[in-house]
């Protein structure tokens, strides 16, 4: 059940091939859920497709990166007084029928964040070797930090409550947010839960994480995790919050 004020955000960058069906599928499954597509200056018709399918749009004036867009969505949700926010990908990989289960877990366990993870039936991640090695590497790294090893730490299927919204409004990684977010939460003694979900193939286009970018990704995220550990007292950074 969708209770309280819930917002669905869909970060999208050049997803004209998939975004309309993603939005329509959500509207058919959960007609009362407001949908906000956060467009990162796409160079294709993503905005028009999303708007015609019935979503509201948040448009950033220049390309911010995935994390910057998700944070903009969290800040907006916080300002508009939403109690929880669900994030799904704009490529059709996530099934909206799983959204109520994520929200249920969020409410039932009282944790700050619920991650929809790839269930066994969905099969392995359809991606190249380097990225798969990177994910295993991060599961190893995260185990001592989080006290447990997340089964799918790069999943973009996430539900958060208002406490998490407040924290993420202040501190959120700019580029590849998923893994660092876990560390940001842990520094606040916040908890996360996992819900196994069906994960599908992306409908159109290609993943933005290519083989070469995976290497950059690993270094970038590793540094981000390390920096978050250094900021052990959880003080927000100096400067604009």
């Amino acid at each position: 059940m969708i209770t309280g004020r819930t917002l669905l955000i869909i970060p999208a960058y050049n997803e004209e091939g998939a975004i309309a069906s993603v939005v329509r599928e959500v509207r058919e499954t959960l007609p009362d859920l407001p949908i906000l597509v956060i467009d990162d200056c796409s160079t294709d018709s993503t905005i028009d497709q999303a708007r015609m399918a019935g979503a509201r749009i948040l448009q950033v004036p220049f390309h911010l990166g995935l994390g910057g867009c998700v944070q903009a969505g969290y800040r907006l949700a916080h300002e508009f007084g939403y109690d929880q926010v669900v994030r799904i990908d704009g490529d059709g990989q996530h099934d909206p029928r799983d959204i109520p289960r994520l929200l249920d877990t969020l409410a039932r366990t009282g944790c700050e964040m619920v991650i929809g993870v790839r269930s066994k039936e969905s099969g392995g991640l359809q991606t190249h070797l380097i990225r798969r090695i990177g994910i295993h590497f991060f599961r190893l790294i995260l185990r001592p930090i989080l006290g447990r090893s997340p089964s799918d730490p790069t999943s973009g299927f996430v539900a958060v409550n208002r406490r998490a919204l407040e924290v993420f409004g202040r501190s959120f990684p700019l580029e590849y947010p998923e893994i660092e977010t876990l560390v940001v939460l842990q520094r606040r003694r916040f908890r996360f839960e996992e819900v196994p979900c069906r994960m599908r193939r992306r409908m159109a286009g290609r993943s933005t994480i290519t083989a070469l970018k995976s290497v950059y990704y690993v270094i970038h995220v590793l540094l981000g995790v390390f920096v978050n550990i250094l900021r052990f007292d959880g003080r927000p950074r100096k400067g604009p919050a």
Partner: protein
Amino acid sequence: MERLLDALAILSLALLVIVLRSLRREHIRVEHSVSWLAASVALLALSRSRALLERFSAWLGLHDASVALIAIILVVFLGVFYRYSRIVSGLKDMNITLTQRVAILEHKLQRQHEEAQDKP
């Protein structure tokens, strides 16, 4: 060594002139010229004080004062670069915040506009 010091003097003078010219043309803001000006003046002073440089390199246990000189130059510019990394990072933070604010405000305006149109 003499020649190296002369070259350093010329280079730091050139740096000084370039920075002053950029200031005059408003290519560099005054607050961002300070570290360049300080660096060029410091290096100019260093190039004119050979005795000091030799005492310093002896203290470091170096036989060659030119190595000490190059080490000092390196440290000065590392300091300048570090300062600019911090400045750029601060600017980026402000930029992200501003970008997000603009997007959210635009979104709010759009909503108000729609609501006003919906009302008869």
